[in-house]
């Protein structure tokens, strides 16, 4: 059965690959990288979104970005070159390096820890809760149960 699913998935993945082939063209890369960097004029805005009239930096930086892409540099090399020139604050998010990894792993790590802890806690509480005694099947109880059900059915 599993093998069958795998065989069914292969052509699907191939189709997906064909559909999305060539999506990383120059304009898409420019748009992608331009959103991964900040304007350095002090406006605290993403490079491609800086719209200050007469901004002294964004147009020059965007020109440098176009030139870097045109020269055939890979995305990582472009980001590294900008970081080298403008400092680490030019990147809109920390890279996955050394201490900066913490920025990425701490929030999801804590969420997973919290979820696991909550599961464990509820399980512990559940095990401690004494089981309810079996309800006798007598007509009086059934009638009462039916009345409660009717009155609270909303």
């Amino acid at each position, binding site marked *: 059965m599993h093998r069958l699913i795998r065989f069914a998935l292969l052509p699907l993945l191939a189709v997906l690959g064909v559909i999305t082939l060539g999506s990383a063209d120059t304009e898409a890369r420019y748009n992608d990288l331009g959103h991964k960097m900040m304007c350095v004029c002090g406006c605290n805005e993403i490079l491609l979104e800086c719209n200050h009239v007469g901004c002294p930096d964004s147009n020059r930086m965007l020109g440098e970005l176009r030139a870097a892409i045109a020269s055939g540099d890979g995305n990582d090399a472009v980001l590294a070159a900008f970081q080298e020139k403008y400092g680490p604050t030019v990147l809109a998010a920390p890279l996955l390096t050394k201490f900066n990894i913490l920025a990425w792993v701490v929030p*999801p790590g804590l969420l997973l820890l919290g979820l696991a802890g909550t599961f464990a806690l509820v399980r512990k509480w559940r095990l401690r809760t004494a089981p309810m005694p079996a309800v006798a099947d007598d007509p009086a109880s059934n009638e009462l149960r039916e009345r409660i059900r009717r009155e609270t059915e909303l």
Partner: protein
Amino acid sequence: MPAFGSFALLVALALSGYNLLAGAVALRQLATGGRGWVSPEKLAETARRAGIASFFATACAAFALVWAAFTNDFSVAYILEHSNRALPWPYKFAALWSGQEGSLLLWAFLLSAYGFVLRVRHKVDVKLTAYASTILAGIQVFFLLLVNVAATPFSLVTGAVPPDGNGLNPLLQYPEMVIHPPMLYLGYVGFSVPFAFALGALMMRYPGEKWIHITRRWTMVTWLFLTVGIFLGMHWAYSVLGWGGYWGWDPVENASLMPWLTGTAFLHSVMMQEKRGMMKSWNVWLIFSTFMLAILGTLLTRSGLVSSVHAFAQSAIGTWFWVFLVIVLAVCLFTYILNRDHLKTEHKLESLVSRESSFLFNNLVLLAACFTVLWGTLFPVLSEYVQGNRVTVSAPFYNRVAVPIGVFLLFLTGIGPLLAWRSTSWRSIRKNFVVPGIAAVVVAIAVIPLGVHPWTIFTTDEQGGFYAWITFAMAAFVATAIFAEFWNGGKVIRQKSGQNLLASMVQLTRRNTRRYGGYIVHFGIVLIFIGIGGQAFNQSHEQTMNYKQSFMLGPYRLECLDYSQDSNANYDTEFALLNVYRGDRLVTKLSPELRVYPASGQPSTIVANHSTLAWDLYVIYAGKDPATGQPVIKAFLNPLVAWIWIGLIVTILGTGVALLPNLSAAVAAQRHRVTLPAEAVPAGRAGD
């Protein structure tokens, strides 16, 4: 007038100080049975009256500052910095909160206004209100000390008084700016009230959960103010900043989001305390955290600790906030440690598949979202401390880390109402989940031909399409689950009363306003998520345009009809006039502007937006080509944005419904002239 304002602030500080000290002494005497030269009851009453009087004194100070703005009194340094003669009158009013000193005065004023209402309504519970009033007085003393000593709004200019002021920041000269800050501040400040009640209840070991009932409306109204404040800020950013978005994950935006997230968690988890006597410690710490996060957010943006587009100028005011925050934390910790046995839970969770556990997970996810925002906001500071250099934590980080948490939260919003209290059987789960599950699958398939391609996450670095796809599917799941709740409940009432289904649903809502109002709020949140999901498909185009020149964006063709310039007393403006066509049909005319305010020399963008339910055509005048003098036009096509604002309206409506008292079944039947049978639905349940 400046002298009157300064004097009023001093009087307010003295009255609040008296409220704090006399209140504390009276409560101590009441707790220990000790007596001074005046009875503790009388002392507490004088403290309460001093608290009421402090409101009038603070109101006089706020009035004095506004009056100074309206009369162009530029001898007041604050008015000189934030107003000018040509400023239209609504913005002169807004000068009250456009700078550090004025906004702190507004904070003190709103706090005293909340305190006024609380102290006037003290008969709800005299002793608990006395505790809350004294704690509020402590907070008031802090803010009044700030405006009396550290950030005085009535400082006078030295030397000759200039004939005109520097004017209001152009970005703030927008109608929403007249109501956005007060709304946001009403939200921030408002959380002081449930905080004061929670701390007071813990200090006096208040029996039962009545304090929650007393503060329920306070908390909901405060939450609503904060929600409206945040969304007005988003709408302002969208309409004024001109970058085509509404949320930039700026530290100031984050500062408003953090207390909103914990406040939302509190609104959910108090229901468990009310219904099942559970999570008492958790709730107390949630409201403590919410208040402290509101203070922390203020600290972050006013101390210069983190850089922000909105941040006020760096000042020594941060030290004051640090000290206050440490005092608040110490008082909360001390009170909790002393009285934690009072918060012992009465019940424990019996099943992982129950309404209680859905609330628990909802709280966990909301807190994880809050922590993510706090972590991202503070990480640059931490990085500087550890690595010696700052890093930027902006939109790409939050899009990767916070967005999945948000989608998970949306999922929990849907499943919560489908689960029963205590435990839910698998049969019931199967029955309740089938229809919403089918709706989710149908929508997940239906949106693919519309261009929502989740597989792009596997082939490119782009994640937006994938998260948008999940969001739309989850939105269908949650909306169907909510609709099923109204449908099923309405059907039962229809069977009993004979009314039509719609009228039955209205009656159902009126019988349990809190529950069904909550569902309406959830539906509003679903609409907001749909609107945010559209962001993944934004398009933009920028072009220098000559007369009759045009370009295409999505289905629209934008043609430059004219461009020119103009000026008035307040600003100079450059603008373009564009015809917008869809096919050959003229859809609308748009006129994006660029204003420059001579008083401050600052520019401001006036966005031209053609909004429909499907998308916004958002056009800005990005500047002038220096070589040709022709306008540079930047246009964005932003899908589904209108649903965010519609979602906000639905959320306001839902909160309004939840605030209404329940209508008893008997009254409802009487109104509809229908006699209910004896076994009819009981009067409004306590709410869930």
